């Protein structure tokens, strides 16, 4: 008897929901094996990675704070990927948003007023959009490959951030260390959960997937995204591919930019060289873990956020490598892609 993959007559909805769970279980199993192989006690490692963060309220708070930008970025990327616009530039758009939102504070460090925070957030979103407009224009005008242009612009943004935080925007009072001035109170997100870093930004971020769900389900834009599954049908329907590329890049770029400024105006408090922009890539994993469904973005973001917090925790308590967190995410993505096969195929045992 040998196993055989047989195509299902209809994609299984049940599997669509279970596949991420299977993937998560497989990823944790592989992690345990790796832990054992590297000489650490697997069960302790498992506890430190996945359970310790959930054991205390402050752990939960950390997970929420880490998941918020993932939910924002993931929601935007769900739209882009559904429209087959492969935006790999969330990292660059995140940085652009952080930079754009910081402009006001850099040049007017003592600024006050209730209007400051909303304007900064708006600037952040716009910054992300403008940065995403570049690959959009390149794609439409020159047929440039979106994957390549967005990816390359990530490095440009990283370099730009490095330059700004070491150069013109460096706070002179920092004793030579890179980084901008700290954001004043008027430009900082109010805390919602005292004693933690859970702020208004976290609340905003978790609304994003819901808004995106509504957009995709009920609006004309959402209909266009659905139809863009087929290029020829989009032409037949009278939809412009160029418009779809613009709109999806601007939307996902804007949400990534907003995530960037929310981090800077929130937990980080200043524009630094490292503002966790690698969240832009984790956002891709979140989008796929959510099966490109906006409703799945929240649980997916929480899971990946948990992986982040857990691996940071394991570094401290067990001395595990810092790269472990990234390794986990990669394994999770691979496991998910493999588990997704079961959505379209079922496993049968055949007589050899």
């Amino acid at each position, binding site marked *: 008897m040998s196993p055989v993959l047989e*195509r299902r007559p209809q994609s299984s909805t049940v599997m669509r929901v279970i596949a991420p769970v299977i993937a998560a279980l497989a990823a944790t199993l592989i992690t345990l094996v790796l832990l054992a192989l590297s000489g650490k006690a697997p069960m302790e490692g498992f506890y430190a990675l996945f359970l310790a963060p959930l054991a205390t309220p402050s752990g939960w708070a950390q997970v929420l704070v880490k998941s918020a930008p993932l939910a924002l970025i993931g929601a935007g990327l769900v739209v882009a990927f559904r429209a087959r616009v492969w935006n790999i530039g969330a990292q660059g758009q995140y940085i652009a948003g952080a930079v754009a939102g910081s402009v006001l504070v850099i040049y007017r460090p003592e600024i006050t007023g209730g209007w400051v925070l909303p304007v900064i957030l708006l600037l952040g979103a716009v910054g992300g959009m403008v940065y995403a407009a570049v690959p959009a224009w390149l794609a439409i005008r020159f047929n440039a490959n979106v994957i390549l242009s967005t990816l390359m612009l990530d490095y440009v943004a990283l370099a730009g951030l490095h330059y700004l935080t070491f150069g013109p925007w460096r706070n002179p009072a920092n004793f030579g260390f890179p980084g901008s001035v700290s954001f004043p109170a008027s430009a900082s997100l109010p805390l919602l959960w005292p004693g933690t870093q859970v702020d208004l930004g976290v609340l905003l971020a978790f609304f994003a997937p819901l808004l995106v769900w509504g957009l995709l389900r009920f609006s004309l834009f959402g209909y266009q995204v659905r139809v863009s599954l087929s290029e*020829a049908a989009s*032409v037949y329907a009278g939809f412009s591919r160029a418009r779809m590329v613009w709109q999806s890049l601007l939307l996902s770029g804007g949400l990534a930019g907003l995530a960037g400024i929310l981090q800077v105006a929130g937990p980080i408090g200043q524009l630094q060289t490292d503002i966790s922009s690698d969240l832009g890539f984790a956002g891709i994993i979140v989008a796929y873990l959510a099966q490109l469904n906006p409703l799945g973005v929240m649980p997916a973001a929480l899971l990946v956020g948990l992986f982040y917090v857990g691996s940071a925790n394991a570094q401290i308590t067990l001395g595990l490598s810092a790269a472990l967190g990234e390794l986990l995410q990669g394994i999770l993505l691979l496991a998910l892609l493999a588990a997704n096969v079961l959505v379209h195929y079922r496993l049968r045992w055949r007589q050899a």
Partner: protein
Amino acid sequence: MPRNMDRGRESKLDKQAAVGPPRLELLGLSKHFPGVKANDEVSFEIRRGEIHALLGENGAGKSTLLKMIFGLLKPDAGQIKWEGRIIQIGSPRHAQSLGMGMVQQHFALLESLSVAENLALTLNRRGRFDLERIVHQIEAAANEYGLKVPARRPVHHLSVGERQRVEILRCLLQEEPLRLLILDEPTSVLTPQESKALFAVLRNLAADGLSILFVSHKLEEVRALCDRVTVLRKGEVVARLDSAKEAVDELARLMVGEAPPPLLLSEKRKDAGPVRLQVEGLNLPAADPHGMPLRNINLELRSGEILGLAGVSGNGQAELLAALTGERRSPTKSILIDGLPVGYLDVRARRRLGLRYVPEERVGKGVVPELSLIDNGLLTRWGRFLKKGWMRSREARESAWRLCERHHVRQTGVEHPAASLSGGNLQKFIMGRELDEQPTIFIAAQPTWGVDVASARRIQSQLLELRARGAALMVISDDLEELLALSDRIAVMSGGRISPVRSIDGIDRKELGRWMGAGREGWESLNDVA
């Protein structure tokens, strides 16, 4: 008859008398797919030197059967016997090594390479790459089998008929001597003259002992060419006839299950009304290297009239449709709707002027297969279901329901994806969606291709009804019979040009056939007066 020896090689065909075990025997072959029985206990045999027809309408299970014979699919039940021995055909390579060859509807030729280079890809498995040897083989085959093909010419310069001959040559020149040649709907891409030439070649080959399996749904050809017929309907063998000379009606009845309903010709054709759409001197370069440029296209679509555009697929029909519908922009004044220059208008703008169309590609363009029927029902009329940028989902659902009811579209629920619809129902859905919008100019490309007879009749009746209501229609089809039944005037598209337009009364089929083969040299080369 003297044989031309190709450097000492034997003639490739087995010249055995028509005795001994049958070349191919199918015993109780069955194949199931989720939800459908594609083939159910199919049994028949093909003798040596026989031209055997596999007759069946679209959806009868012919393709699945061919795939099993050629090793592309494994049968769920039943046996295949090759020259008396039971065998399992594991792959097309295995089938070829037994002596089978297949010419499919869609050719596997690389356009930028020459004929010899294309054949070298599959024939030169062992040894050095020797193009000259292939060229010699091709020329020898030309003499031996009457299959003339210019060996060094690049394929994109060849007509479709010539390309098909290259595919047949590929089978004849393969390593293992060819014993069974399978042709899948070969004449769907040929002009009438090319079909005749093909039949002559096939009869020659069969006389030498080659067995031929001729798969078709065209009754006249089967009667003209074939010895015995196996009729397939809904996956089962419904008849095995010893002579193909049965009356057309009887064959049709066997294929469909009852006499096909006659085409309802509405009351006698009224005189055509005013010109609704006009094309004047349209020249359009090819959109890509393998496309067809449009040259000096002139035509008129008049109210209450159907203009039929005949011609083999690939002669510019797709490019013309793209230009007429707005998918591709043209010089402004070259296309006029009700006298207004509209060449620069896009698809949506022309729809607002009353122009609607049904494209040739149903799945993937006419509908998005993964989306529900509700979503697909809006595809070309989503503007009507918008309220301030938001889609009205309840109205959309009801509209999809009514569409299916009105046009007899059999489905399992409008929330289900369009991919769940059969070919005929899908086309009824698409046609219904367009017709319900009361178009004043309507273009249909290959409206009944691959559709079962009952649905095809319904669609053709709808076209006639639309004409009776005063719309201006154009039907593009490679089915000449269909065009002759529906059109008021008819023209032929060939090589990116349109022939002179003729009224259907007193039409000369031979002239049409000649025009279909005219190609790029134009009608002048045929000394036809416009």
